[in-house]
């Protein structure tokens, strides 16, 4: 019988809660989160006793040490931290715990993420212009492949940014 497995787990900042619930369901079936690669794109599970575990994801750019202290005090265990993403785990029996208990906290998390995406995307404007200019001056195959890859990634990031921005505005209106 397999004792561990790697699973492709594509998720977006808009489906964080789905990924959290997925990890929770896996734990209830005896597959416990062990680690992940590429910001949770690939997730590794190990076979253990089925457990009731709550998984919560936060995004913090530069948190103070106070952040992990409060989380530790409240019984949360840091399972993984990657590129600003924090995955917290807590075992429970009856009441399902959560790291965020109001709408504003979710809005704030999205805003921190939007700011980071903005910081990444802004310098891409001059970089894109340089790549385009280079491509028109020297239309080599290797450059074309690189450019297609580059623009695809940037397009994905822009789509994430816009979708997250709209979702956050909707959440703000609900308050």
């Amino acid at each position, binding site marked *: 019988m397999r004792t561990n497995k790697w699973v492709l787990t594509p998720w977006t900042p808009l489906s964080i809660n789905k990924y959290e619930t997925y990890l929770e369901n896996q734990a209830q079936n005896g597959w416990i989160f062990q680690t992940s690669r590429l910001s949770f794109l690939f997730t590794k599970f190990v076979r253990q006793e089925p457990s009731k575990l709550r998984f919560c994801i936060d995004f913090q750019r530069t948190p103070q040490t106070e952040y992990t202290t*409060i*989380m530790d*005090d409240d019984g949360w265990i840091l399972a993984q931290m990657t590129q600003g993403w924090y995955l917290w785990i807590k075992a429970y029996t009856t009441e399902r715990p959560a790291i965020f208990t109001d709408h*504003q*906290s979710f809005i704030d998390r999205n805003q921190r993420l939007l700011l980071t995406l903005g910081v990444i995307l802004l310098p891409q404007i001059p970089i894109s212009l340089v790549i385009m200019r280079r491509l028109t001056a020297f239309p080599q195959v290797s450059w074309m492949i690189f450019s297609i890859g580059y623009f695809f990634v940037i397009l994905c990031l822009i789509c994430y940014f816009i979708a997250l921005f709209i979702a956050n505005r909707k959440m703000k209106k609900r308050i």
Partner: protein
Amino acid sequence: MFKKIIEKYIPMTETAYYMLLALKKPLHGYGIILEVERLTNKRLRIGAGTIYGTLTKMEQDQLIQVVGEDDRRKIYLQTELGMELLSLEINRLKELYENGVKGENLNANQ
């Protein structure tokens, strides 16, 4: 500045209200979670992530201040501005409550 703070915080969320109320005495982050739980007879347990985010914002807005440290845990306390804001909110809630009771009495007498 106070006008901006009022616009930002009032009407207060339940989280902000109870956190500010709990910080009438010095407490660290986790202490606030426990104090709010005690104040509300375990009805409300504020999440640790929510506590951290709200503390950061309230400290930036000078509603609370750090008054010490205990084993790497910051100890927070209401500032005068925080107290002023809280009493404004309490007065608003009093008005809501009193008008609600008046309305109920009117209905009962009709």
